[in-house]
């Protein structure tokens, strides 16, 4: 990590975020590696400067994708009528999405979205959980690409579902001009509805997931590198505090596992909710 620091610490006049400032300060003190945004933008490994450029984050994403794919392929490689071992786990996993997200939000008509929803949930979950896996230590969703791509996909899918169900005109009308409101209110309501449905939904989806994962990583790095510094390099007086930092690091790791599951669940749930809303008869 130390090798990357000089690149990040080149002083710029537009030091917009406090985090960048921390990075700058951290570079001066070799004893303590403060968490910084540098972690999210590692140098390229392969194909530098092309569209195929591949860095550490992409490697984490690839490993997790292969892990999830392998798990499900092994689980259902030779499905038995009476499930054994890993097939039980696989069925449980798929059933969770089917029952907790599709059946409760979309009802029976949501079954055709099962492949999309299952992929969405386990893709995000795998990317998130990579943040607490040793040696990976970085969530695949802590750079903007995956959250944004998934949010845009959700936007396309829910709008396509609504337009296919109701036709473009009636879909837009029911979204922008909700019935049962005095005509004059539309002056206010329509821009708000447009903004919230067509602009803010993908943005909030993206930022909720991205910010959670970034913050989680920063907290983990803060407590673990802090513990490392306090226990090994700090004055004797400060060393006991290192134990506190270790305990906090442990606590944050557990918390991050919860957040990883929760954020995957929320992202998938909201996507399902948007699709169900777009398809429902009355908005």
């Amino acid at each position, binding site marked *: 990590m130390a090798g*990357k620091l000089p*690149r*990040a610490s080149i002083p*710029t006049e*537009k*030091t*917009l*975020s406090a985090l*960048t400032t921390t*990075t700058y300060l951290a570079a001066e003190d070799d004893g303590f590696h403060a968490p*910084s*945004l*540098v972690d999210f*933008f*590692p*140098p*390229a490994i392969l*194909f*530098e*400067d092309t*569209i*195929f*450029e*591949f*860095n550490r984050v*992409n490697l984490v*994403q*690839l490993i997790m*994708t292969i892990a999830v*794919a392998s798990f*499900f*392929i092994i*689980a*259902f*490689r030779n*499905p*038995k*009528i009476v*499930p054994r071992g890993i*097939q039980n786990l*696989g*069925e449980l996993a*798929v059933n969770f999405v089917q029952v907790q997200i599709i059946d409760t939000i979309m009802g029976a008509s949501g079954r055709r979205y*099962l*492949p*999309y929803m*299952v*992929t969405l949930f*386990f*893709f995000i979950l795998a990317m998130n959980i990579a943040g607490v896996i040793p040696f990976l230590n970085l969530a695949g969703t802590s*750079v*903007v*690409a995956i959250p*944004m*791509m*998934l949010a845009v*996909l959700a936007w396309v899918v829910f709008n396509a579902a609504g337009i296919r169900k109701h036709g473009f005109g009636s879909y837009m009308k029911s979204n922008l001009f909700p019935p049962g409101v005095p005509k004059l209110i539309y002056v206010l309501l329509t821009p708000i509805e447009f903004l919230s449905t067509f602009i803010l939904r993908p943005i909030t989806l*993206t*930022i909720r997931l*991205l910010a959670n994962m970034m913050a989680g990583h920063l907290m983990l790095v803060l407590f673990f590198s802090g513990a490392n510094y306090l226990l090994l390099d700090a004055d004797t007086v400060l060393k006991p505090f290192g134990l506190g930092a270790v305990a906090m690091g442990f606590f944050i790791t557990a918390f991050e596992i919860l957040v990883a599951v929760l954020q995957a669940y929320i992202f998938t749930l909201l996507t399902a909710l948007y699709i169900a809303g777009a398809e429902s008869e009355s908005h």
Partner: protein
Amino acid sequence: MVHAAEGDVPEGIDLFIPPWYDIFWSAVMFVALFWIFWKFVLPNMKKALAARSEGIEQKLEQAEVERSEAQALLAQYREQLAEARADAAQIRADAQSERQSIVAEARTEAQEAAAAVTERAEVQLSAEADRVRNVLSRDVGRLATELAEKIVGETLDEQKVNATVERFISDLETVAADGETVAADGQETR
């Protein structure tokens, strides 16, 4: 997008603009995973679940069939048991009546045999009695004649003597018959 190459740290709004290569890899991985779920995992799971439902249905149907079969068998056994019981009762009743008829027949036969024996004995007895009576009447007549000759001392007219003897004997018989009746009466009352 300019920051993409060197791993520089983007600032401000650039944090939220992903480099193209990142989007490319994310999309590739998502599509790959989607394809695996869509074409392999979910169809396989659906197949397994369908097979499971079908298996359970078959088992239930089979159990139903077996249950009704067992019930039919049970009913059949019960019927057979009832039949067997009725048969046994019938046989017992038949045996009972047969025994009665056999006994009655045996009794009749015995009675007939006894009657025949009695009859034969009676015939024999009466024949014996007749013979005895003849012997007696001849002997008694001769004896009486001899006695009378001895007493009277002369030969008596044969014809007259015979008549006397016969009268005497018939008197005797009357007396004997009375005695017999009395004897029979005495036996009955005893």
